[in-house]
């Protein structure tokens, strides 16, 4: 068990801090910098979908509805906390029905 935990820790931590040393030592061409700067938006997309469909694994439409509510709340400029609570409440109500 200790071996598993240490091993999991190393393979998780090394990819996290290695980039710090890469960035300081290797000068990137402009297009690579642009590429890296767009990554957060692409990552958000990939993290949201299709994962959100599996919030309630046997009822993907519940996750989808929760996501739509989150989108609407975010469009009307609600604070992120409100977006989170509104979306959670939506899923909660569906589960109670």
């Amino acid at each position: 068990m200790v071996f598993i935990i240490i091993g999991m820790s190393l393979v998780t931590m090394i990819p996290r801090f290695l980039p710090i040393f890469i960035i300081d030592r290797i000068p990137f061409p402009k297009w690579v910098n642009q590429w890296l700067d767009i990554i957060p938006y692409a990552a958000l997309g990939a993290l949201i979908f299709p994962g959100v469909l599996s919030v309630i694994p046997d009822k993907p439409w519940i996750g989808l509805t929760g996501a739509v509510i989150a989108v609407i709340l975010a469009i009307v400029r609600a604070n992120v906390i409100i977006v989170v609570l509104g979306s959670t409440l939506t899923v909660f109500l569906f589960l109670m029905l």
Partner: protein
Amino acid sequence: MIEEINHLNEEQLHKKILLKKGFMAALPIVLGYFPIAITYGVLAAQAGISLIELTAMSILVYAGAAQFMGVSMITVGAGSLEIIIATFVLNFRHFVMSLSFANRTRGLQAKWKVPLSLGLTDESFSIASLHTKEAEQTNGGYFYAALIISAYASWVIGSFLGGMLGDVIPATLSQSMGIALYAMFIGLLIPSVKKEIRYGYVAGLAMIFNYIFSYTFSIDQGWSIVCSTLLASLIGVFIIRGKTM
């Protein structure tokens, strides 16, 4: 003399403000992590992992999806090496995220960089990389430290409580909280898209790629997220060409 004291106080105040801002920015993560961490603690305890071991895993690994996977692999009796390799594959996306974060926060003092990078998760990366102006400020590290430590504390404390107390959150509620982090990602993405629609195209592309990779080609979740993120953002360079970033 008095001026010097005033200056010191001002700096202290500025640090405090940054800490508070960091904590406020982390609040959605804190809220989202807590029930998931409790669920992890409960499942790990059920799998026969001791309270110390399951908490140590949260402290040392600090990666939700990988820890759930680890627990279920331990339950079915998978080999240690197999678990470690699967963890590497699942978490390799953080390499890409950390690379992007390090590139966006070059202004940050060197002493902050390594400790902060160790606390990068999908969630803290998303919030941190949409707050890049803090990195330009003196003491900007305080903002990111507060953000990352709050999220980390929520994960570790939640795991411990779940392992110790068992299911303290009613099932329906904790299931509903499963959407919290997705809602947070949406809440982070939409304001950027409203400012610049092309970021929306990039995110949409990543969603389509991720869907195709994971469903049509049944690629591992870890690689699927890495590939779709890299591919969509590479295409994004061409979509956004010409605009100063």
